[in-house]
């Protein structure tokens, strides 16, 4: 059997691929912001919060880390409506991605907080800063600088995992690929092209994050 590759359909498909890629970028942008914020709160809560909160965060982290993202997504999208929480696909995807990413980044941010020497907090308190100021202005920037590479990797991993949200009909890159291959009957070529788009997105995202991190957190961020 011989099979000849055919990329003739590509000319008419660039619009759909670009739209899908834009949705994927939107999803990961929202997830990055919400997930990072949630993980800072979670890591701080796990260290300084009341015992019950510490336990709850611990359980949340273990449950998310030990179950597949796809199952979490289905649980949120199909399962929650039966207890009255109905989300539209894009919101469900953003929620699932944020909750998933934060479970990993809580541990990462926590490691960063632990890496800041206690003398920093003591010095800041001695200078008369309030505890909240100490955390936001002194401890957090130093912690983020240490864990920035790990955070970057986690964001890229999450972007790649976002491919499965096509399963709840979010019109992102993989969903557009599914639609294209159903129309063109060129499944391999379609998925090959889209895989390369993902590869470019992940390389670009990593570059962007490293560059942005340098600007935001100062030199020495890799």
């Amino acid at each position: 059997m011989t099979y000849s590759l055919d990329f003739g359909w590509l000319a008419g498909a660039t619009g759909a691929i670009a739209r899908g890629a834009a949705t994927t970028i939107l999803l990961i942008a929202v997830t990055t912001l919400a997930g990072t914020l949630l993980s800072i709160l979670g890591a701080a809560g796990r260290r300084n919060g009341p015992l019950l909160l510490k336990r709850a965060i611990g359980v949340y982290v273990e449950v998310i880390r030990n179950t597949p993202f796809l199952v979490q997504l289905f649980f949120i999208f199909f399962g929650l409506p039966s207890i009255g929480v109905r989300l539209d696909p894009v919101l469900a995807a953003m929620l699932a991605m944020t909750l998933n990413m934060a479970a990993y980044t809580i541990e990462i941010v926590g490691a960063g907080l632990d890496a800041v020497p206690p003398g920093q907090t003591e010095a800041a308190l001695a200078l008369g800063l309030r505890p909240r100021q100490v955390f936001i202005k002194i401890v957090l920037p130093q912690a983020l600088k240490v864990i920035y590479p790990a955070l970057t990797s986690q964001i890229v991993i999450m972007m790649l995992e976002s491919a499965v949200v096509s399963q709840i009909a979010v019109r992102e890159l993989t969903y557009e690929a599914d639609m294209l291959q159903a129309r063109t009957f060129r499944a391999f070529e379609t998925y090959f092209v889209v895989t390369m788009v993902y590869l470019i997105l992940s390389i670009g995202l990593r570059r962007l994050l490293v560059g942005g991190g340098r600007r935001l957190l100062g030199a020495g961020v890799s």
Partner: protein
Amino acid sequence: MIEFTFWDILRNLLLAARWTVLLSLAAFVGGAVVGMIVLFFRIAKNKWARRLASGYIALFQGTPLLMQLFLMFFGLPMLGLRIEPWTAAVLGLTFFASAYLAEIWRGGVDALPRGQWDAGASLGLHYLQELRLIILPQAFSITRAPTVGFLVQLIKSTALTSIIGFEELVRTSNAINNATFEPFKVYGLVALIFFVMCFPLTQYARSLEQRAAAR
């Protein structure tokens, strides 16, 4: 309509979980074998062999697993191979695992002091003997924790094979959900089964990590 009791649902899910376990094991063993080959290239003396392996690893770590599975599923038939979802799932996950395992183990090889190679050479061992007797045993032993950690990731990744039509836990749960209309219960149970499989391994990886840190 057939009525499903709670026990019917659980029994069917557990039966399907056997396939998840089997697929995870097959992919882990396959990934370890292919990963060893990638590792040999990755730490070879030849610059082009190293670059080839780096490219291979970057390709698999820079694209979604779902796309890799689709390319297996639709790509292999073009080479004239008849392919079932099972074959595509095992092959796809094997290559995926090989890239990650090779990179984990390379970290172990790189962490060894240069003197280990020199000592091996001074004992008159040739390259392969050095690797087999000195370098690899140490590299594997210091990377045991991330290797177990990756196994957890691999078990979770088998969920994606439901999308290319392999009848494992998640695909079965979709079918049960369509029959019972109890997504909360069904997906909750699926999450629980995955948790029971993964959590002990996660704890084991953590204890290995702590033991390594204490040393």
